[in-house]
């Protein structure tokens, strides 16, 4: 873009921006005056943050609420054009063009006029549109789903397709069952870190939290609370003290009673809470390996072999320095020092074999690190890094494991069987490249629960050992964790971009604490999984 054009663009932009800010401030002021506290909660499905938008009540005699045109345009990502000469406003939303004329009830949609019940108004320098425009005119023509709850003043845009659709609670003499209906079998993780609360995380779950939050439970369930996070859904089950044990499984997972062949039938994930103080019923196999004692550190899931070999991966190396600290400390060197210390202590204290992805200052490509761990038959993979941020503000440690590949990928793989043949023939199409990529991600899916457990244990132990901020467990698509045929985590030990933490990383004492935390976590991981098969 040329210089003058850019300058024009910026000045035009700032003028309009200033005008819109002023207009909305005016609308806010008038709404505060007319109807204190009236605002519209807007919930987006596209990842935008939920927001409160001010509404205005402009007539004494009518309850109709108005929304500032600028807010409306932002919410629906409209292109807008305002012609003060003929007092017409055009909003282009999706494939339609909506033309409003001030002080009339007419909205021309594309070429067709429709009528609102109230006039569009010009009030204190802003164009105010009756809220009913959303329900009467916009919603029926929108490709995205638009739902406006006028009682609670809640607007939701683009409802994601829910894949967790219903919850039911059944109570009988054995215990209480919470049954979740899903459109597909999603991965899940349950733990009971908080006494009395079972936290069920559904990977890739999408649900309506309002429908899943039950203030009053039944039987052994006091209440249920649901939260929809950006990627995953969480359910918190508040359970009674008399719960002896619990288990979670898909209906028919053990007995094979699920309707076979019907892939469209809803999948039912059942949380079973066993009632305490009842005699064990002979023959009833509640003590199966999936049954978990309450307030155990977490749920027991897939049983893996005792850990005998661990891969340790010092990040970066050679020409890839990684992050450089203010005093010149190089991430690649610190990673190696920590990793070598971890290797020695794992071998000495836990008696396991250790495979290193590098022991020197050399550059090893990420896929070769994965390959080395896989071919050595390692049962755990721990990657060691130091973190970096753009300013010195960020601080603390965090532990990563791989975000799961979505099940859509599996479906796609099934459909594109021919693509893998094409790939073998080196007919490299885009599709072929994708398939390769998806397979890598899916390999680690199988170890997701274990990776998540290991990450949480490391986080907990390092939090005790380090005394710096605990940034928590994160899930992203880190390349070095893709394709691992074992549980894998990446530890970002501290920020080299933070001078205080750089000093810590340069002290052997602090590095020992990092190793201490990791060792303790592996010990815990071993004792949770080892010998239970």
């Amino acid at each position: 873009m040329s210089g003058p054009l850019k300058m024009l663009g910026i000045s035009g932009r700032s003028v309009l921006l200033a005008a819109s800010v002023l207009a909305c401030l005016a609308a806010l002021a008038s709404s505060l005056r007319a109807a204190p506290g009236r605002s519209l909660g807007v919930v987006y499905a596209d990842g935008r943050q939920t927001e409160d938008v001010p509404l205005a009540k402009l007539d004494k005699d009518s309850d109709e609420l108005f929304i500032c045109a600028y807010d409306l345009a932002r919410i629906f990502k409209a292109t807008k054009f305002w012609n003060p000469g003929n007092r017409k406003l055009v909003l282009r939303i999706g494939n339609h063009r909506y033309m409003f004329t001030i002080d009339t009830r007419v909205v021309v949609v594309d070429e067709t006029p429709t009528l609102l019940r109230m006039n569009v108004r010009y009030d204190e320098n802003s164009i105010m549109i009756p809220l009913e425009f959303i329900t009467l005119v916009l919603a029926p023509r929108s490709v995205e789903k638009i739902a406006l709850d006028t009682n609670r003043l809640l607007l939701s845009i683009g409802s994601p397709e829910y894949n967790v659709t219903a919850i039911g609670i059944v109570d009988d003499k054995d215990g209480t069952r919470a049954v979740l209906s899903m459109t597909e079998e999603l991965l899940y993780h349950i733990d009971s870190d908080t006494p009395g609360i079972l936290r069920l995380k559904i990977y890739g779950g999408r649900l309506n939290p309002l429908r899943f939050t039950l203030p009053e439970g039944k039987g052994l369930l006091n209440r249920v609370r649901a939260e929809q996070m950006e990627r995953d859904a969480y359910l918190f089950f508040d359970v009674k003290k008399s719960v002896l044990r619990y288990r979670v499984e898909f209906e028919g997972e053990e007995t094979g009673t699920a309707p076979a062949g019907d892939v469209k039938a809803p999948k039912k994930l059942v949380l079973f809470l066993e009632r305490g103080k009842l005699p064990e019923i002979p023959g009833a196999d509640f003590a199966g390996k999936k049954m978990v004692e309450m307030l155990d550190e977490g749920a027991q899931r897939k049983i893996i072999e005792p850990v005998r070999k661990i891969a340790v991966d010092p990040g970066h190396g050679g020409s890839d320095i990684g992050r450089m600290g203010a005093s010149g400390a190089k991430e690649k060197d610190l990673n190696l020092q920590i990793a070598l210390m971890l290797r020695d202590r794992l071998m000495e204290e836990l008696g396991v074999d250790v495979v290193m992805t590098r022991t020197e200052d050399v550059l090893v490509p990420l896929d070769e690190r994965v390959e080395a761990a896989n071919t050595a038959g390692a049962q755990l993979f721990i990657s060691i890094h130091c973190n970096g941020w753009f300013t010195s503000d960020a601080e603390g440690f965090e532990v990563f494991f791989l975000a799961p590949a979505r099940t859509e990928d599996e479906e796609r793989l099934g459909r594109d069987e021919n693509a893998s043949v094409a790939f073998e023939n080196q007919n490299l199409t885009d599709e072929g490249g994708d398939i390769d990529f998806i397979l890598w991600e899916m390999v680690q899916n199988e170890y997701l629960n274990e990776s998540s457990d290991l990450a949480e244990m490391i986080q907990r132990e390092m939090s005790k050992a380090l005394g710096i901020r605990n940034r928590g467990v994160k899930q992203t698509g880190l390349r070095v964790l893709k394709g691992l045929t074992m549980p894998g985590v990446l530890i970002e030990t501290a920020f080299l971009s933070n001078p205080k933490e750089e000093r810590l990383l340069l002290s052997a004492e602090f590095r020992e604490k990092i190793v201490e935390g990791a060792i303790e976590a592996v010990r815990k991981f071993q004792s949770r999984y080892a010998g239970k098969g």
Partner: protein
Amino acid sequence: MIDVNIGRSIAIAVAVLMVIVAAIYLVPRLRMKAPTEVQKVSEEMRAVTIFFGDEGADAFVSETREVPVAQAFEDQVKLVLAEIITGPQDSHKFSAMPPGTELIQVFWVEDTQTLILDFNNAFTANHPGGSTGEYYTITNIIKTVSANFPQVARVQFLIEGKAVESIAGHYSVDKPIDVKKWR
């Protein structure tokens, strides 16, 4: 190993070819259009959502901006992404763009719904590193593209016309990133 290398070279060759073809096709067109665009650009504005990190790298935060409506899709993308590079208005937010970053060219491959973003060398060379830093750099761009341009299914990063393995050594960017699946 050999297969992978061949695959990679073919992929790079295809990417480079696409860029060349797109450049031959687009560059003259853009130049021709520029003068007539000026009027339109200053009148019609579009609200866009720009993603940043917060100062402590704890969360993604967004700002709503007004940018001029451009006629060519590529120009619109450039105008929007320039806002990330310009940075946030609020001092508690932080743009995860390495110093000196410039978006040289934008190409849109409609058939595969792939947006190609060609950055200058500073984008990787000046990157401060760290998983967190790199994650925010990529995600701010992906989130901003996805929030404002729903038609984009994939984003391919190039550095001065070439595909690279990674920006700071933690995430693969050698292939197009699927916008919906990026995490």
